[in-house]
């Protein structure tokens, strides 16, 4: 009774999902496939992550399903491990970004006044620099290790999460039931976690999907530029970069890691689209 009946929420969600459109089911299937690949990467891959197994740029064969890369590492193996690294890092970054952004956003919405002013102006300034450029600046200063990458991107991305959380949190914070809780004498933690958070959770869940997508694309972009995840860690962005020259010979191998990125982003977008539609409970026009 203390919680908001999570089981009920999930059960209706599952029931709804059965009647979801094909696009959402497809998206869900793709996401599950990616997660399984990431989890079982060492069991699926024929070689180890950074093992040089052949000459550079071997063509597709029975031995090397998708050929080898510029250093002679197995492409398929690296694609599989890439799922683990790219997804794992993006997921950690998004979770960190949400922890920072949500708590700050909720605090701004709940307390208002100077807390809100302070946080909002700080975020305004951080958002006045394009995200990729800011990331480049910070990475050039702090170097490109994975923890730096995660922290820098999480902080930059938390500004977006803050803005959204604050905006929708404000909409709830002015409602009479929050006022009723204040009048009852409830503390800020209760108001944030019991009154506001459950009511903005669906929007935040959807936003988590979209932010993950964005972070994932940003990290891939940085890796593609050679400034993200560093070798020998297998990562889709840098794999595209490493084998890019093949494209000029009409070889589609570099499109595979790029396509892997694109497919996941599409899948997440499809699921989020459906989720938002369902959570709002509205049918437009």
């Amino acid at each position: 009774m203390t919680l908001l009946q999570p089981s009920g929420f999930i059960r209706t969600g599952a029931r709804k999902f059965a009647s979801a459109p094909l696009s959402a089911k497809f998206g869900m299937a793709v996401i599950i496939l990616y997660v399984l690949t990431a989890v079982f990467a060492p069991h699926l891959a024929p070689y180890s992550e950074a093992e040089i197994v052949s000459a550079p740029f071997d063509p597709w064969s029975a031995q090397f399903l998708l050929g080898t890369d510029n250093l002679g590492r197995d492409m398929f193996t690296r694609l599989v491990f890439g799922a683990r690294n790219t997804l794992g890092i993006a997921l950690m970054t998004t979770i960190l970004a949400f922890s920072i952004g949500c708590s700050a956003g909720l605090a701004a919405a709940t307390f208002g006044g100077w807390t809100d002013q302070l946080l909002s102006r700080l975020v305004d300034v951080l958002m006045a620099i394009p995200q990729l450029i800011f990331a480049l600046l910070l990475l050039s200063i702090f170097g490109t290790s994975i923890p730096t990458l995660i922290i820098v991107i999480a902080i930059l991305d938390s500004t977006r999460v803050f803005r959204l959380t604050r905006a929708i949190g404000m909409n709830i914070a002015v409602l009479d039931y929050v006022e009723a809780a204040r009048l009852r004498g409830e503390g800020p933690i209760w108001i944030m976690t019991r009154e506001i958070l459950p009511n903005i959770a669906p929007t935040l869940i959807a936003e988590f999907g979209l932010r993950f997508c964005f972070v994932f694309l940003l990290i891939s972009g940085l890796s593609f530029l050679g400034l993200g995840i560093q070798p020998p860690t297998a990562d889709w962005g840098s794999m595209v970069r490493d084998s890019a020259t093949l494209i000029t010979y009409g070889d589609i191998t570099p499109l595979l890691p790029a396509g892997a990125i694109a497919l996941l982003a599409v899948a997440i977008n499809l699921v989020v689209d459906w989720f938002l539609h369902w959570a709002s409970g509205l049918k437009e026009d």
Partner: protein
Amino acid sequence: MKPIAKIIGQRVAFGALTLWIVSLIIFAGVQLLPGDIATELLGQSATPETVAALRKSLGLDVPAYLRYFDWLSSMLHGNFGTALSNGRDIAELIKPRLYNTLLLAASAAAISVPLALVGGIVAALYRNTFVDRAINVVTLASISFPEFFVAYILILFLAVHAGILPSLSDVDSTTSVLDRLIAMALPALTLAVVVMAHMLRMTRTSIINLLGNQYIETARLKGLPEWRVLVRHALPNALAPIATVIVLNLAYLITGVVVVEVVFVYPGLGQLIVDSVQKRDIPVVQACSLIFAATYILLNLTSDVLSIVMNPRLMHPK
């Protein structure tokens, strides 16, 4: 008209303030370097004497706040200092590249803005029909694709298979206008595809959001046909949000330009900043960041001002 001038004045002042704080951040960021630029440049093996000599020549022995004002005033005079990696004058380095980048962004905007507007209005007019769903799927896909994926697909089809456009966009000051346009075609197209999808979706949403308003029902109950309802009653109110959408996406172009320039080896500002980050040529990164940030702030300011000017409540106060 007085209050509106005041509001715009406030926005401009706030933009200037933001830019100043950004310059502070960009400058201060470098101070956070473990050690400083001198040790960074010379490596661990350098003797204390050589480090001290370099510090002096770089002016690092002066207090930070003095260096900041020095740096800021030279920036304002267009003097960006010299690059650490090759000793060239940064202003000279940036000038042609800034021109190239702006040209690329402008071409991408010229392709994407009209298409996005028309597409967004069409999708809103035929909402929930086959046309709308098709547009939805295509745009959803293209916002999900990383820029380099779009770029390589275009290269594969238009450069490698069809052979009509070059896959490398090597231009310099001697390139003729026509050659320049041809060289720029693929990068501009790539950027346009990515930005257009965002713009189109947001245009569609901002129009459809307005259709729930009561005055739209009033218009329909006047017996007006749907196109007239949309053009005369929805569109004027959607102008402010649409202008915001366009400007925000132009700002987004600035980010997209970095990756696209690298893919096509296009000599723009984006490539310069990536190269400099790799070489840890911090003065160049600082200068480029400041230029990108200034453009971005300027664009956001434009969108603010546009939405103020287009608001009848502010334009025609009580």
